[in-house]
């Protein structure tokens, strides 16, 4: 191809040919290269995300070792039904997202949009449940820095009558549990919000058929992102909700 005639990458090549569809950027040799680069780039970005959450997991590990009873008590105040429900919602949404990618791969526009809408609904559902939990924690004075009180931990938790109340010094350490809980779930929810927004944009463009002409990279990469967010939750769930539930 005569690269002289092709302007800087912001401009799309004018003529549409089979081997040069409009979504092939000028600096790639062919579609395969473009798609591989896009997928690989997404994976490298996910590496970044792993390390981003990695710092939080590292802090979590340190303090869980130090203040285990506080983490148990903190964990026991969370609603296990909410955590399990949210895990279920996210897993199903991951499945629907995978189906959306599949629909894009086989170039079915309507199923693609349907799966995307279901994914959005599930994502919003997750955020609603999360919001309900946060509200609940606010009511119970569990938000560090803003309205934290150790009141609930120095008395027996009615949901876990087997738990002994914590001594005040250990009860203070539940604040760290909640700090990490809010930092981790907050960062995760932020990723979810970004995800839902992006998916809405993708949905609008999918309606115009932008992703059912072979140009599936945006959908595919968004799928990777969405699954990654799911994986983070898969770890957050046992780490935050399931500490010593049997006590």
């Amino acid at each position, binding site marked *: 191809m005569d690269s002289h005639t092709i302007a800087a990458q912001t401009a799309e090549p004018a003529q549409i040919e089979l081997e040069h569809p409009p979504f092939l950027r000028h600096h790639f040799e062919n579609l395969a290269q473009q798609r591989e680069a896009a997928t690989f780039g997404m994976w490298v970005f996910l590496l970044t995300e792993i390390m981003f959450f990695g710092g939080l997991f590292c802090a979590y590990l340190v303090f869980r070792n130090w203040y285990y009873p506080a983490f148990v008590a903190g964990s026991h105040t969370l609603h296990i039904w909410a955590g399990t429900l949210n895990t279920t919602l996210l897993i199903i949404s991951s499945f629907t997202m995978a189906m959306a990618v599949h629909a894009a791969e086989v170039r079915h526009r309507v199923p693609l949009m349907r799966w995307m809408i279901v994914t959005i609904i599930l994502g919003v559902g997750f955020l609603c449940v999360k919001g309900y939990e946060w509200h609940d924690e606010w009511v119970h004075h569990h938000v560090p820095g803003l309205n934290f009180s150790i009141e609930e931990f120095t008395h027996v938790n009615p949901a876990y009558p087997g738990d002994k109340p914590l*001594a005040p010094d250990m009860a203070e350490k539940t604040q760290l549990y909640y700090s990490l809980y809010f930092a981790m779930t907050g960062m995760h929810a932020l990723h979810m919000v970004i995800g839902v927004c992006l998916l809405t944009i993708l949905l609008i463009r999918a309606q115009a058929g932008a992703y059912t002409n072979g140009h599936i990279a945006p959908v595919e990469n968004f799928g990777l992102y969405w699954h990654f967010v799911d994986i983070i939750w898969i770890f957050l769930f046992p780490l935050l909700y399931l500490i010593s539930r049997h006590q």
Partner: protein
Amino acid sequence: MQHFISPVLWQFLVKWLTHFAIFPPEASSIAPYADALYFFLIFISIIGLGAVAFLVIFFSIRYRQSRNPVATQIEGSTLLEATWTIIPLILFMITFVWGALLYFRIYSPPPNAMNIYVVGKQWMWKIEHPGGQHEIDALHIPIDQPIQLTLISQDVFHSFSVPAFRVKREVIPGRYNTVWFEATKPGVYHLFCTQYCGTLHSQMIGWVYAMKPEDYEAWAAGSTSGHSLAQNGERLFASLGCNSCHNSSPNAHGPNLANVYGSHVQLANGQFVTVDDAFLRDTILNPTLHQIAGYAPIMPTYQGQVSEDGLIDLVEYIKRLNSSYRIDQTIDNSAGQPVQAGATPGGTSAPPLAPGAVKP
């Protein structure tokens, strides 16, 4: 600056000639060891730098274009490359082992070391001698006697550095760090805070006065506040009501603290720990984290109620408790005359402790 016309350059030269030093004084038993490693490192640095400089200069002259117009292409040489991988590696490993040995020499206090407490705060050093001498930005010590410093900060990170002794230790909040040294030469040496700690970081400096033992005795006798740290600790112990649980009665709620220092105790979680300064401090602040086996977790936390100085007093008191008699005495005292924490009311000074307590 006052004498605008004064020969600045001349002053500068005078200063250079009179003050120029390349090494700080070697004033501790560790300093020669540190300097030895330093000289070794300088030696290998000169060798390394010399090798590089020689190669660069020699090749530049020998193979400059005017003399060698056509380069000879050379792929590389595994043998040569292996040589300059292995030789540095060996040198670095020697450095590692040597450095590690020095590190443990500096950070392993001998058992007979005399303990002095240092509290760092923005922007001063508070030095507390067990005998009750309190100093700000000054540290008096006897020479030829190992000194262990127990360091803690009450606010931000500081770092306690005495270049003449080649020792330095971060002073961090919430935790005792220790360092030790043995001064060998009487003199006055700089004491710096080397960790940036806020606005007046550069004024958080003081002096270390290394004195002959007899001079030190004289100084210690003349500078004592009249109450040893342990005596202050005893008063605090009583006023906080510690003795209501920590006493020798068989059904006491808390463990008897007599002779507890240095002993091995079993924690509620089954671990064994040695009771040291850090452990004592932590148990006062976070009792549940260090629950002693066999006792109920009823001890309240004193986080935020006792200052670092108060904690030092308490630690020092508990360290020196060698009979239950003292604690039981405390009960009587406190029952009679409740004492404010931290204050030192004039007439109620507790009787001196065991004779060894005030000894430096």
